[in-house]
């Protein structure tokens, strides 16, 4: 349904006075999401996860430049098309209720989302009621303001807003951190249901554990590149033997229930990226060839990896 190929996003920033510099925050992102599957996108903060969501919805700030290819249902996505599809066919489940209008009651907001996706007001009202029923929200909740709904309820309101327009691609940006464990389980269950109904779900999170509960495939981002796309079942033993990229292995081994063993260092700064592999300076497997050029994404054991040592 969605193919992201070689996506790059950079920001133009001012230094002192009129001098500008280019920050390349996404260098080479590749991702594919098909109908009926949940693709998890995991990585550290600053790896470009959220910016991918913003690029897909066309809500990047004005000083961003985008290159690469976004293809949705076989058609190239340009800014105008993104705008026309946003809310209708591509919907975002944002991180928090702060994305809702604080001055409008939540019921009308969900109804408005339905209208923006093309439904006439009476139909939108019915769609809103259906969405509320589906996520176990009482009609009374519709009359509350965003600040009056509890954390779990807020999640369901956001889900209702994103799904009321029958969008086919759902992008969930960090929907779980800081939530009560039962709410996390519930939110993840709802996302899985959406995929089972034939929608494509992209779950953006830094929490591998949460992602693995529902994802079919996991894409690992590092410094604005896709370093690996693995099946969820590849994350099985604490060593991560079936994983392909050294960063994925390190990320997996660092979990407290696995080895709790970190990798030193940080992601390279976006205004000073190395010309070779972006992970070379932290990689335990590094060889001189790694620094010669950026590795390409290649197929290894039914997954994808951007590493010449895999």
């Amino acid at each position, binding site marked *: 349904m969605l193919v992201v190929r070689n996506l790059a996003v950079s920001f133009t920033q001012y230094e002192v006075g009129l001098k500008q510099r280019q*920050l390349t925050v996404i260098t080479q992102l590749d991702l594919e999401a098909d109908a009926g599957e949940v693709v998890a996108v*995991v*990585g*550290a*903060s*600053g790896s470009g996860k959220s910016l991918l969501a913003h690029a897909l919805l066309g809500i990047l700030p004005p000083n961003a430049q985008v290159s690469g290819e976004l293809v949705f249902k076989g058609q190239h996505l340009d800014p105008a098309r993104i705008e026309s599809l946003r809310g209708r066919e591509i919907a975002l489940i944002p991180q928090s209720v702060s994305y809702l209008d604080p001055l409008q009651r939540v019921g009308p907001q969900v109804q408005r989302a339905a209208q923006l996706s093309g439904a006439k007001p009476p139909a939108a009202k019915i769609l809103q009621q259906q969405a509320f029923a589906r996520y176990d929200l009482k009609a009374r909740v519709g009359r509350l303001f965003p600040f009056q709904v*509890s*954390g779990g309820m807020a999640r369901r309101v956001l889900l209702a807003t994103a799904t009321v327009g029958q969008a086919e691609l759902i992008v969930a940006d960090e929907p779980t*951190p*800081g*939530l*009560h*464990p039962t709410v996390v389980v519930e939110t993840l269950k709802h996302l899985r249901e959406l995929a089972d109904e034939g929608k494509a779900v992209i779950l953006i999170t*830094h929490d*591998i554990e949460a992602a693995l509960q529902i994802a079919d495939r996991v894409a690992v981002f590092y410094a604005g590149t896709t370093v690996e796309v693995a099946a969820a079942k590849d994350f099985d033993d604490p060593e991560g033997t079936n994983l392909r990229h050294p960063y994925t292995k*390190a*990320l*997996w081994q*660092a*979990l*407290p*229930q696995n080895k*709790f*063993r*970190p*990798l*030193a*260092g*940080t*992601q390279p*700064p976006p205004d*000073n990226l190395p010309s070779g592999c972006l992970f070379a300076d932290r990689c335990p497997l590094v060889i001189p060839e790694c620094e010669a050029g950026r590795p390409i994404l290649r197929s290894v054991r039914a997954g994808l990896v951007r590493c010449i040592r895999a």
Partner: protein
Amino acid sequence: MLKATDLSFRYAKDKPWVWRGVSLSVEPGEVVGLSGPSGLGKTTLAKILAGYLSYYTGQVTYDDKPLPKNGYCPVQLIFQHPELAVNPRWRISQVLYEGHTPDESLLKALGVSSGWLSRWPQELSGGELQRVAVARALGPQTRYLIADEMTTMLDANTQALIWQAVLGHAQRHNLGVLVVSHDAPLLKRLCQRVISLEAVMQ
């Protein structure tokens, strides 16, 4: 010893108690977990223990004295969201050196890069900012560290890296650490004992 005796908290006189009768203590060199689901007031308890809030009943003592009202507080708090805990109009160098000059070995263990110093906070990622915030809190006068969901927003690798650095520092300087988290595997990995807020509150 950092000791809380019979703490109770409510937002206002006419509001119900959030929790009552909480007592706990942390010894120097000890790593204690405080668990409990969100919404129960873990953050409020963390803030009281670090001297951020004054409207509560009960007592918080540090070596049998109340926490100092002015001057450097020996109990330091690390927040869940580092981007809210740094002044957006300050450069990273100002943030890092606000309390003391962290020594090289600590910065190295946390992976704080010298290239960050001249940057603005919004140019660093959450994980990078949290490393700076941790270095800022680990001054020579800090005796206890309260880590309130310190790594909840971070990826597993950064989480492990920050904790490795913090535990190493705590061991060398005999600091007491209170780990506030809802993440059971993390608490199991880090702590000598875990207190459940649900169990100690009335």
